[in-house]
């Protein structure tokens, strides 16, 4: 196990280098020049050159690339080029609101999806199963934007069940008052595709020989579904979940924008619009690292869920 973890950690280095090179290439050869944005409405070429000098983007590429690598190694990405706020402060202050919304959303969505998927798989082929699958297909066809606009209008404005938007200072105030509607809408949006997907995972297992054997041994339906089928279906479910986990770091732009949540999603979009390279670099590296760590975690979880899995 330790050798496996060490090997995987070692393999992260070339992957991270690849990410650094890709981001560096995209910023320098595809993105706009931040000096022109920072120069303001009226600036002469000398002032623009001065800004480029201060930002260090007039340096040879190898110097800039080394600076980037050093930032990754030290974890210090400097300050935002557009607001002068330290990048670390930006992340520290914005990640909290995003997580307050996204973590409960993901947990509720996952638990509900698994329970409903197990239930509909159990009654597969029935009217209930078909009705839920049709409802899921319809729900998946509607844009997230429509859910947000209609949900905000009906549930918050017309029925006054939730605030239209806003964000407070207290954790519980934010979780139960301001995040309730965004979480509800996020869960509704995420349920449909997840139920369909997880139902398929469960159905794949239901037809396996070991399930027939378990039934032949006289185990109850509950025991078969929860102890045997669910446990084996968890591996693809974990894979699916792990794909979404790094996404927590980039927030949810639409939800944050509509409900005025000061999360990281809005900050990332702003950074891209402003060519704010320090913020872009930091978020890309954080997401890449999170993806690699989560992948490692997923492999370890496979082993925990199914002892037959060999970590090589």
């Amino acid at each position, binding site marked *: 196990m330790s050798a496996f973890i060490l090997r995987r950690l070692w393999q992260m280095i070339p992957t991270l280098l690849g990410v650094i090179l890709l981001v560096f290439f995209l910023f320098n050869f595809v993105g706009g020049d*931040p000096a022109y944005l920072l120069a303001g409405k009226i600036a002469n070429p000398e002032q623009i050159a001065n800004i480029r000098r201060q930002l260090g983007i007039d340096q040879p590429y190898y110097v800039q690339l080394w600076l980037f690598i050093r930032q990754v190694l030290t974890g210090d990405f400097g300050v935002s080029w557009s607001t002068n706020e330290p990048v670390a402060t930006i992340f520290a202050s914005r990640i909290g609101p995003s997580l307050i919304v996204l973590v409960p959303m993901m947990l509720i969505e996952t638990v509900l999806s698994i329970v409903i998927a197990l239930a509909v798989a159990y009654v597969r082929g029935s009217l209930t199963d078909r009705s839920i699958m049709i409802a899921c297909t319809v729900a998946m066809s509607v844009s997230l934007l429509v859910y947000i606009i209609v949900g905000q209008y009906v549930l918050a404005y017309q029925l006054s069940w939730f605030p239209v938007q806003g964000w407070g200072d207290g954790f519980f105030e934010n979780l139960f008052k301001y995040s309730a509607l965004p979480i509800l809408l996020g869960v509704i949006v995420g349920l449909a595709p997840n139920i369909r997907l997880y139902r398929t995972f469960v159905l794949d297992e239901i037809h396996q020989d070991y399930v027939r054997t378990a039934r032949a041994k006289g185990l109850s339906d509950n025991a078969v579904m929860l102890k045997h089928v669910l446990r084996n279906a968890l591996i693809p479910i974990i894979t699916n979940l792990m794909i979404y986990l790094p996404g927590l770091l980039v927030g949810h732009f639409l939800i944050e924008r509509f409900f005025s949540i000061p999360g990281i999603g809005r900050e990332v979009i702003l950074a891209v619009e402003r060519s704010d390279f320090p913020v872009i670099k930091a978020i890309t590296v954080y997401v890449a690292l999170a993806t690699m760590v989560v992948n490692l975690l997923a492999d370890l979880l496979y082993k925990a869920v199914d002892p037959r899995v060999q970590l090589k």
Partner: protein
Amino acid sequence: MLKCLSLPLTARCLALLLPLLGIAVLPASAAPDPAKVLRVVFEAGDEGFDPVRSVNYYSGAVLDAIGESLLTYDYMARPAKLVAGVAENMPEISKDGTTLTFRLRKGVYFAPDQAFKGQKRELTAQDFVFSFKRFFDPALRSQWRFLFDGKIVGMDDFVKAAEQTGRLDYDRPVAGLEAPDRYTLRIRLTQADYNFPYVLAMAATVPVAREVVERYGDDLGAHPVGTNAYMLTEYRRGSRIVLEANPHYRGFKWDFTPSDDAEERAIAAKLKGRDMPQIGRVEINIIEEEQSRYLAFMRGELDMVARVDALAESWREGSGLKPELKARGIVRLDEIEPELTYTFFNFRDPLVGGFAREKIALRRAMIMAHDIDAEIRIIRKNQAVAATMPIPRGVVGYNPAWRPLNRYNPKAANTLLDTFGYKRGADGWRTLPNGDPLTISLTSEPQQVQREHDELWRKSLEKIGIRLEVKTGTFAENLKAAKRCQLQMWNSAWHADYPDGENFLQLLYGPNSEQSNNGCYDSPVFNRLYEMALRLPPSPERNRLYEMMTRQVEIDGAWRFGVSRIRTTLLHPNVVGYRKHPVIHAEWKFIDLEQAR
């Protein structure tokens, strides 16, 4: 108070603690009522509140509320009229127009802050000297530097020394920026500049105290300390800003002269003689999405809201409001923004540029083919008015009787192209006079509203047989190309920094190419007229020069004049005395809250 003691000492806490320390906090007016809480909204996030670094409109609004510049504007006068701000009077200007002398009001104090170590800190002329030098600090990369660049005697040498060493020596004197005594500020200009007083009314020029800059350093943007009616007490960047009455603010009596407008007269009748500010707390929420803003307003979570044009069908009925909004006493206020959208053609471009007659004909034909009414009706949802000059309404130099030369007329545009040899091929598309294919390139951004503008251009040019290709890029990429005079044609916009036509006409001045003149239009006639106008004080004679420049721009087909947007503000009936000022961003100290919500 206990909470205050347990927390880092904020300005608010300091205000509470000062009396306990034996330091008197005696506001000149007892007017601000902490129970009067105004809840407003910004449509986008701020960028901090360092005057020299923050160019964002919303940062400017907060700076307007916190800081005081030498000059300001009369709240009710239209067109905007300069009046003394923190200066006692308007400046004494030397005969040659190059020296401006300001006498500061005595007894103007900064809001309490830890930087002052518990002492009341009076504003002095030296604060302005220090603050104006900050525009040239290379480390601050001030986007407002152009306001002072090349204008103050001795500043160039001062800046050169800073650029050589990489740091600005704030203690080094500048000949044109002097404080001969505590309350006198003398500015010597390199040449007469009759628009310079406007610069001294901008939020960018509010003074900062050196102690505050030294205490907060790079984080000054989160700790603005000024002398105006409000001070920052809560700041969650991109989300929420709370201002509370500055206990050191001297206050004033509401005493403005209304126009003949009945509503303005009613405001004056109600507020005249009242001690201001009345509002004790201003809560600013940043809500970027229009639907969220509108619903929050309708739910009573906001006292006023603006820029909800996309939802106009929900609240608009003709030029008024829907009956259900009227029944709730909601008031609609329309104000044309001192801004202008325009499309420029690149004069260095081989296809559309230059002053050859056939190039002028091509540009003017394209301008005449563009259906501005369709833009206002479809894209702007009637929340804009067509621009007729390169100077928008409400700005000095605008002539309401002006008859533009290149009005919408596709038939005349076709005739013009036929006359100058742009023949139609068998496929219906025109070619250049030499027979080469003619395809115009419009630069755009990948946003829905831009796509609508692109489509309108495409349809407009189709009417005159010109093929259009749209090149899409990010704003940053396009801006870089524009500054290098590399874009053939681009839709742009300009919002008045100050309400004088010169602020817009400089966008067409040849020597400003690669700076603000993105079309790189360089007409000797226009340039000469512009330079003549610079030497004149505001006068009918100068306005005539502005009109001559406008005509020259039309003759050369340098710009397609676009629109000025109408800013509609919806107000709940508890808000009293609100008029949107064309230049002041924060009108909060001039208004009151009366009825219960």
